[in-house]
């Protein structure tokens, strides 16, 4: 099992969509929310994802396909 700490950013058209719930329904990925700030026009959620590497990758690809921005919560590590 792998873990990833990520940040999802939703623009105004996605703020009301249950993207995280859908992620856990479509893929065998555990979602563990740690921090969030949701407003009318933008929202972000920091969460830990746990699952098999292939499921995590496919899950993140699906999240991106919804228009949600996905970042590593800790920033880039390639320097």
């Amino acid at each position, binding site marked *: 099992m792998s873990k*990833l700490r990520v940040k999802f950013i939703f623009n105004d058209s996605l703020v009301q969509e249950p993207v995280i719930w859908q992620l856990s329904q479509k893929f065998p990925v555990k979602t563990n929310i740690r921090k969030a700030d949701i407003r009318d026009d933008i929202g972000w959620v920091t969460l830990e994802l746990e699952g098999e590497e292939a499921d995590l990758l496919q899950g993140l690809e699906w999240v991106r396909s919804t228009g949600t921005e996905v970042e*590593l919560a800790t*920033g*880039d590590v*390639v*320097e």
Partner: protein
Amino acid sequence: MAYATALKCRECGREYPTDPLNVCEFCFGPLEVKYDYEAIGQKISRDRIQNGPLTMWRYEDLLPVDAANAVDLQTGFTPLIKATNLGRLLGLDHLYIKNDAVNPTNSFKDRVVSVAATKAVEYEFKTLACASTGNLAGSVAAHAAKAGMNSYIFIPSDLERGKVVGAAIYGPTLVAVDGSYDDVNRLCSELADTYPWAFVNINMRPYYAEGSKTLGYEVAEQLGWQAPAHCVVPSASGSMFTKIWKGLHEFEDLGLIPKVNTRMHMTQAEGCSPIAAAYLAGTTRVRPVKPKTIAKSLAIGNPADGYYSLKVIEESGGDATIVPEEEVVTGIQLLAENEGIFTETAGGVVISGLKRLVESGAIKRDEVTVAYITGNGLKTLEAVESVVKSIRINPTMKEFHEAIPNP
């Protein structure tokens, strides 16, 4: 002896023991080293520092490791050069260049890696690791060699040959990763969670980052125990920018220098300028970008310390400048042709950014200004090849005089 007492979350304030950790387990905020400044204050003095080694380890009391264990390639205490020619050209009477390109592996990364490697030895890690596009790779491999550790260096598979060789020569396990920049970031984050390795800028990051404070200490000491009016600094993750500021303030708080009135100016190249762009847009939300710049050592699209460096700009009354890509090489040439210092592309960003700051009136003629040059030009030869214009002749006086009639 080290005076680090804990790691503290910069977001929620939770404290942790000084273990190999980089993020808060609760909120995923970044962790920072907390010190016993009272104890440090009882021991540190200008004399004690001046009697120390001519390296960054003269500031051992303010680093989170025991200097007796230092993995040291003789890093730091690099020259602070009065740049009279460049100053005259730009209209500055007190311009200084902090030439950190002369460190053992030719970049400022030796400062941070020396601290991270030392901490890794203290934790009894056997392997030092990093993901890098250049400067960090060479420094990690060199420090691992010195410490007798194994090293794993992860690089994008399209990295320039010179940089690959510059790391490979120290004998690490070099892993070239096919995939996007995001893929390499994700893979290395997972590897750091999986293997008992000291990933210098992941699980060692709180200690690693502290090494950059010495860039603030040295400049203050070399200016005769005072902070400059302006620091002009290149930024990728934003970490070094925040740590120079922290270093200057630690010196002030410990009574080693008078009050700090330094304005911190950040320079980024147009092709990867997420922090400067946020500053210019008046927001603290740093939007990640896909880097596309010739200043590859500054190509961090999702900067970990972006928010904190914006706070430093605000607190210090500084500025941020975006340098057009075509001005990067111009900056390299300006420094080389006027001061005899050959810097890599990040230094070109600094010099062109400095020029813009002077032109905008942010920096005045009589103010003490320090421009930080953090890497050697030999690392990015491909960026400046177009400026080479030699005259080719046969070895005769006749041909020389034909080519150059009035030498």
